C-alpha cells in the first residue's frame, strides 16, 4: 500500500468574472487555483494550509470535480479523473468523498439522518447492504442508532460533523477531502473530530486531503503539508520538516503568527509580522505572488514567478528564488510598505448595479 493515490498536475481553476452590455461577457478571471501540482500518497494525510481566499477549498473541489478545473491533470489511482464524464463520473465519485466545513449548511435541513446517509447508497445502487452499512458507519463515527430518525438541527456541532463524516464514509471511499472539518467547532469538540478522523484512517486505511487554516491542527494530523498562497503552493514538506525548517518566507510568517497557549513560549517568541493583506486573486501581483508582503523580496521577484522546486533531498519543495539565501542569512529582511488591498466584494460582485426585482406583490 504505497505510491501516490492522487496526482494533481498543474491544476488551474479560474472563475470568470462576468459583465456586459446585454449578454454577459467575461471581463476577467478570479485565479482561485493557478497551477498546483501535488501528489497524495496512499494512506497518508495531506494537509493544506493557507489564508482565507487562497484557493484551498477550490483546489479540493476541483480535485473532486465539484467545480470544473480550467486546465491541468488529475489522476486518481491511475484513472484520469478529468476525462470522466456523465454516468462514469457519477459512479466514480464513490471513491472520493468530501467532508464540509459547516456541518449545518452541508446537511439538508429537511432530511433525517437516515435519508441523508442512505441517499448516497441509493445513488450507487447499494440498497441491499444498506442497513448493515448504516449501522457500521454510525458505529464508527460514534453516533447511536437512535440518531437515524433525528434531523440535523437536533444535534450539536460536533455530532453534526460526525454525521457529515458518516455520510462520506458510508460509501466506502478511498480518499476523503476534508474542507476545514473542525474550524466551525468548539475548541473542546475539535479534538473529538480530529481523533475520529485519525481512528478512521487507521482502521479503514483512508487517504485524506485535509484543508484548514489552523496550522497547529494541520501539523497535528498531516503527514505532508502544503502551504498555499494566492492560488499556488509555496511550500511542501513533511509535517515535522516544515516546522523545523520553514523555507518560504510566508511559511515562516505563518508559523510565527500562530499563537501558542503557553505564556512561557509566547513571551520569548520571535515574531515575524507580515504587513498588509492577501492580494485579490482576481488581480494577483506579477512574478512571485508573495512579493508584496515579503521582507526579502528582490527585483527578480516581480518579474519571474518562482517554480515549486525540490529544495534538497529531504523532499521539501519550495517556491522561492532566494530560499537558500534566506535560510543562510545571506539575504537580510527589509522594511515592507503595506499595500492597500481592496476586498473582493468591491472588485468582483460589487461592480454591477443590483437591480431591484419587482417580485413583490402589489395589489
Amino acid at each position, binding site marked *: 500500500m504505497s505510491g501516490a493515490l492522487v496526482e494533481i498536475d498543474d491544476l488551474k481553476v479560474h472563475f470568470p468574472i462576468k459583465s456586459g452590455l446585454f449578454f454577459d461577457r467575461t471581463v476577467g478571471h478570479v485565479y482561485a487555483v493557478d497551477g498546483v501540482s501535488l501528489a497524495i500518497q496512499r494512506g497518508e494525510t495531506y494537509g493544506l494550509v493557507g489564508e482565507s481566499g487562497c484557493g484551498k477549498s477550490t483546489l479540493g*473541489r476541483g480535485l*473532486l470535480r*465539484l467545480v470544473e478545473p480550467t486546465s491541468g491533470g488529475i489522476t486518481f489511482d491511475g484513472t484520469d479523473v478529468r476525462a470522466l464524464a456523465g454516468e462514469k463520473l*457519477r*459512479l*466514480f*465519485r*464513490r471513491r*472520493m*468523498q*468530501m467532508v*464540509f*466545513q*459547516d456541518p449545518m*449548511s*452541508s*446537511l*439538508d*435541513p*429537511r*432530511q*433525517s439522518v437516515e435519508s441523508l446517509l442512505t*441517499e*448516497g447508497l441509493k*445513488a*450507487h445502487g447499494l440498497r441491499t447492504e444498506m442497513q448493515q452499512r448504516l449501522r457500521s458507519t454510525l458505529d464508527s463515527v460514534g453516533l447511536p442508532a*437512535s*440518531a437515524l*430518525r*433525528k*434531523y440535523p*438541527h*437536533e444535534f450539536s456541532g460536533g455530532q453534526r460533523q460526525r454525521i*457529515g463524516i458518516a*455520510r462520506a464514509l458510508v*460509501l466506502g471511499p478511498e480518499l476523503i477531502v476534508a474542507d476545514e472539518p473542525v474550524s466551525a467547532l468548539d475548541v473542546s469538540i475539535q479534538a473529538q473530530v480530529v481523533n475520529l478522523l485519525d481512528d478512521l484512517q487507521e482502521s479503514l486505511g483512508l487517504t485524506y486531503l485535509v484543508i484548514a487554516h489552523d496550522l497547529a491542527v494541520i501539523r497535528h494530523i498531516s503527514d505532508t503539508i502544503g502551504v498555499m498562497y494566492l492560488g499556488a503552493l509555496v511550500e511542501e514538506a513533511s509535517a515535522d520538516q516544515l516546522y523545523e525548517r520553514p523555507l518560504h518566507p510566508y511559511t515562516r510568517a505563518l508559523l510565527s503568527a500562530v499563537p501558542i497557549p503557553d505564556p512561557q513560549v509566547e513571551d520569548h517568541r520571535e515574531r515575524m509580522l507580515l504587513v498588509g493583506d492577501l492580494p485579490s486573486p482576481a488581480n494577483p501581483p506579477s512574478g512571485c505572488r508573495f512579493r508584496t508582503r515579503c521582507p526579502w523580496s528582490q527585483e527578480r521577484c516581480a518579474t519571474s514567478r518562482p517554480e515549486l522546486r525540490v529544495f534538497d533531498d529531504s523532499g521539501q519543495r519550495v517556491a522561492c528564488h532566494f530560499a537558500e539565501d534566506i535560510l543562510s542569512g545571506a539575504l537580510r529582511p527589509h522594511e515592507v510598505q503595506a499595500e492597500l488591498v481592496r476586498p473582493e466584494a468591491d472588485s468582483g460582485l460589487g461592480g454591477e448595479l443590483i437591480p431591484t*426585482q*419587482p*417580485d413583490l*406583490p*402589489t*395589489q
Partner: protein
Amino acid sequence: MSPGGISALADHKRRRIEELIARTSEPGGVSLLRDAGRRLLRNPTAIVGATIILLFLVIAIFAPLVAPHDPIQRFPELTKDLTVDNIPGPSAGHPLGSDPLGRDFASRMIYGARQTLFVGVLATLIGLLIGVLLGALAGAAGGWVDVLIMRLTDVMLALPSLLLAITLVALASESTQWTVIMAVAIVNVPIFARLLRGSMLSQRESDHVLAARSLGVKQRDIVLRHMLPNSLTAVIVQATLTFAVAILDAAALSFLGLGDPDINRAEWGLMLGVDGVRYFEVRPELAYFPALAIILVALGFTLLGESIREALDPKNRR
C-alpha cells in the same frame, strides 16, 4: 487521570444528571417544518388568520347546508316588490333580504365563500404551478433555458399586475370565469417563477447540494429532493399572500366590467364590483357585506402568510 466520568458516580447522582440533561434536550425526530409549525401554533396572529380562513373554508364547503336557499333561484316573494330602486330588505326566510334580481342575499353571501375561495385558490394554484414549473426549469437547467424564461418573466413583469390582468382579459377571445382566473393566475407566474429560480440558484451553490453531488446523487434527484423542497417554502409563503391579492384583483376586474360575466355566480368580488357599486344607494348592504367578507378573507390570508414567513425565518428559531 481518572477516567470514567459520571459512570463512576453514585447511582442516584448519575440518574439526576441524566434526568437534567434529558430535560434540556429536545425529543427526537422533529423536522424543521414541524418545528416551524409548532412556532406557528404559538403565534396569536397566525391563529387569528387561520381561524378566519378555516371559518370561511367551512362555510364554503358546507354552503349547501348552511345557506337557507339556492343562491341562484329567484323568489316570488322577493321579486313581488322588487324594482331597480327598491330591493327588499330582511324578511322572514330571507335574513339579509333580496339581491337586485330577487335572489336570497344571505345564501349568495354564503355560497360566495365557495366561489370566492375557488377563484382565489385556483388562480393562486394555477399561477403557482406554472410559475414553479418555469422557475424550476430555469433554476435547474440554467443556460439559455434560464435566459429565455427570465426574459419572458421580464416582459410579464414590465406591466403592473392589475394592468397585466386587464390586458390579458382584453386580449382573451372570450370572457368567462376562466378568463378571469387565468388572467389573475398568469399575473403571478413571473413572481413565483423568479422566486423559485432565485432560491434554486442559491440552493445550487449551497453546501448540501454540493455534498449530494459529491455523493454521486443523480442530477434529477438533486433537483427534486434537495433544491426544490428547500426552495418551496418561500414560494408557499408567497402563495398564501397571493390568495389575498388574487381575490382583490378579481374584484377589481369585476368593478371595471371585465370580470366574470355570469352574474348568477355568487362571488364576492362580482357581487361587490357589479351589484354593490350599482345599487349602493338603494341597498348599501349589497356592497358592505361582500366588501367586508373580502377584507376578512384577504386579512386572514395575509395574517397567515406573514406568520408563516415569520415562523420559517431562521432568525426566529430558538
